[in-house]
């Protein structure tokens, strides 16, 4: 998997992106640049448009105005098939409520994106085992999601998101359903693993501690994105 454009340009660039639902404008003239391997946090109150922004970047929604460029491609002009392909391994997501497939065991949940990528069984096995080890769930490989704690489920979701070495990870309130101890552990893993896999991270959160793992924090209010101070 490619982790960034060859020319050193931004991995992700949003220019004047706007999105409305009926009369209500959710995103207004969004300007954003994310470089390869960069970790960016977006903070803001509920209803400010953060999740909608992530959906547009993931290709699940189409903006009404503006342009979204990812690895040199204009996402707003790509067809559904191409967008689906991007979501298979290049852009992956982590959610507040984990969203694991309930009828698949832990290792199968992690393996699932590799099945979509048509990887060989031997290679899949190796990568899954490795990643489960990395997130500390090797012993829970055979467990069903319903048998796991919140923290375990989120670590599993993290493993699933990183299994394809994505160029960009979109994390929407990844610690929102976890207690502080588990949340901290997940954040540490998110930080460490994205760095290890050289994936860029776009993190949406209410939590300033979560935002602390990122090198840049942006603020979103009423659909408008603004810079906050950069963190060393």
């Amino acid at each position, binding site marked *: 998997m490619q982790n960034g454009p060859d020319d050193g340009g931004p991995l992700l660039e949003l220019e004047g992106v706007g999105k409305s639902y009926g009369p209500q404008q959710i995103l207004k003239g969004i300007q954003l640049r994310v470089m390869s391997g960069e970790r960016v946090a977006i903070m803001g109150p509920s209803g400010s448009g953060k999740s909608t922004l992530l959906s547009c970047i993931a290709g699940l929604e189409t903006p009404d105005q503006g342009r979204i460029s990812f690895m040199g491609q204009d996402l707003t002009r790509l067809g*559904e098939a191409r967008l689906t392909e991007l979501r298979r391994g290049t852009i992956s997501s982590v*959610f507040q409520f984990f969203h694991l497939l*309930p*009828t698949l065991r832990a290792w*199968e949940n992690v393996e699932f994106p590799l099945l*979509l990528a048509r990887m060989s069984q031997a290679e899949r096995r190796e990568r899954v085992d490795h990643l489960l080890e990395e997130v500390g769930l090797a012993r829970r490989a055979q467990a069903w999601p319903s048998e796991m704690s919140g923290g375990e489920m989120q670590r599993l979701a993290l493993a699933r998101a990183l299994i394809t070495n994505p160029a960009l990870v979109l994390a929407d309130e990844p610690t929102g359903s976890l207690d502080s101890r588990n949340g901290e552990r997940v954040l540490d893993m998110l930080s460490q693993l994205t760095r290890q896999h050289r994936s860029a991270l776009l993190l949406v959160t209410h939590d300033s501690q979560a935002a602390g793992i990122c090198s840049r924090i942006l603020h979103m209010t009423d659909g408008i994105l603004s810079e906050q101070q950069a963190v060393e």
Partner: protein
Amino acid sequence: MIPLHQFWRRFSWRHARKEWLQTSLLLVILALGVGTFLSIRIANRSAVEGFGLFTRSLSGPSDWILSQPGNGIPVDRLPEIRLALDPLPARIYPVLERLVLPAHPGNPDKPSRVRLIGLDLVQLLAGSGTASGSADELDIWQVLQEPRHILLSKATQTEWEVAVGNTIDLVVDGRVFPFVVKGTLPESRGDTPLPENLALADIGTLLNRFQLDSLDRVEIVLPEGPGRKTLVAEAGRRLQDSSHDRWTVGSPGQDKIDATSMTAAFRLNLTVLSLIALLVGIYLIAQTLDATVSRRRKEIATLRSLGISPREIYRFWMSEALLYGIAAGLLGLAAGYGMAWFTVDAVTTTIRALYRDTAVEAVRLTLADGALAMALGVGGSLVAAWLPARDAASTPPAQLLRMGKRIPPFALFQHPWIGVLMVVAGALALQLPSWETSPGHSVPVGGYTASLLWLVGGTLVAANSMKPLGRILRKVFPSRASLRLAASRLAAPTSRHQLALAGFLVSIGMAAAMSFMVSSFETTITRWLDQRLRAELFASSLGFQGSDHDQRVQGEILDRIEHWPGVRLVDRFRSVEVDIGSVQASIGGLRFDLIGKDQDLLWIKGPLPMDEMPPEAETFGYANENLQTRLNLELGDIFDVPTPSGPRPVWIAGLHADYARDNGLLLVDLPVLKDWFGVNDYETSAIFLEKGADPAAVQASLKEEFPGLAIRQNGQLMKTALSIFNQTFAVTYALQVIGLTVALGGLVLSLVSLLRESGRELALQRTLGMGRLEIALSTAIEGTGIALAGLLTGLLLGLSLGLVLIRVINYQSFGWTLQTAYPWAEVCFLGGSVLLLAFLISFFTGWLYLRKWSPEAL
């Protein structure tokens, strides 16, 4: 706690209005199931009440019926009957009754026959006092002026394309007689409707024209008034005392009871089939209601969050079902009444073909029908709603639902051991003896009980059969995402999966069982016909059908045929109905010298060698299975046959298969029958030709000479015989199609529900990079997996039910031993078609659903 009417007003009514298509579909399905059952009930009743309607409608209900097996009551016995009854004020109606049809029918394959009644028209005109009807209507005096005059109903005139004043050639007992249509019968006499298939003529002129000297029966009618009961009893006693075996005294009620009993097995089987159709409909209703639960899941979850308990949710859901049931019951009543106008025709046609003639009594609804429709509608709806209501009640509050907490599957389906117990209980129930409802007629209680237990128990056992299928699929296809996902869902089935499977199991099981039964029937009948139909040609009166015991060909005609160029010999068959104790049976005559040479029977046991015949037996005979079962006969028994000259001991030398009738038949040598009953007219004859004679040429020459006869070649008769049997299974075929359509419809509903419930999972799949094609493919595999599990378990169930139908229910109902013949080719075709359809339907359900689906926020 929300009051019920508030719930109905704010939730039930609004949802029903919003989803009016689904609501209407639900009501229509249940109403159709109720209507089908009701229409068959009405048809059965109508056919049974039609027995004996012919004379009852004209002369009024009779109090006693005199008859004599064999040749009937000689005309010159009438004065003795009058003498026996003097001075009682009894009216005596001699009756001649024949089935007649046009000599040149419009449709030779389906001749339109009517029942010609010969009555003393003068006496009828004099006024029986039991039915009003003006002389002007019947035009009796005009009729009496000319021997060829006949009165027909308006419907018959239309069907035969004749009008008043026209001449028409009618076939009676194989001979052609011209008649002139003199008048039109009214539609009713007083309160009693006249059957449409009725013709009336004067008995004196008919006896003269047909050269007959005996009557089919004599009906005795006593006047209304005080002391009538005593009068009737006195008349009966006098008739009995003076009979001296010259006539038998019977009551019309007994005649109707006999006819009702005769057709009981057929009508009961039809009723059971319609109940099965209702059961399949209930499954579809359950799936529809289950789909409603999934659609309203969020609403239920919100209600739970607001403090409504699971018990209240259950109560609300069942109360909605009650409303649906009431509406469906009323609609079903209307539908049943409407459908009865068609089913009456189908049922009476089959009864006429297989049993005896009956009139079509007008379709009418009774209070009992109304109550039954409501009970079925409400009961069916509540039964169908029970599992979905429990599912609704198990919905967690909204917060838990949002986190993806899975709805637990139906608890009932998690205990397959209950199903195993029911299957075992069903096997034990097969040992139950049949329940004798009337002499010689029994209901296979054990068979029906076993079938029901296996249907329900099989559903519970099979509910978990998707799990191993899912596991196998996962192992066989480890590297395809769509397959892996579908396999994992099959390995962890929800209640929706299990309900869809149950619908498939019942439909496939029912279809397979009926195919098995029909195939076995067809194989057995073909084998039997091959054995029995050996002659090159067969003769009977034109329009003769299997149930016609009073449509016969004169012996003189057959004598002439026996000397016809190209004809080697003629075997003749005649039967006489007798009462053996309280069982109605037939004594038949066949040339025994031909058995084992030109003719043969399909032996079940025997025949025993003649030198073993005990000296106390007068002669020997061969009993059919039905007679053996009803009278508990065994090979080698001696059995007393009632004849006009007293009982005659007959040695049972063999037991044979007979699929032409479901009442008992004892065959004796033809000369013996002729001697006992003095008969010389025959129902059917087998014509054997000289070597080298051309069957077609002989057939043509015989038809020309005897236009009142139906002369058929062997192949033609075989085809006609098989078509009659196919006709009896027409309802079965229709139910198979309905069952399979319902199963596939149920699959669609279940898949839509599953997709609807999987909104977040679909959004996740899309986020993970699954395209629309892959998701649709996953849905297709899931649906096909359900169908496959249902098909395999359904075929197993069908095989078991089929064996019960053939070996137990059929045998105990009709006394027939059938050869089992499993329709492998048909089953493979059925299975393949079902799977292919399931795949296509599931795929397009997924594909189309995704087109309209909006992803939920994750």
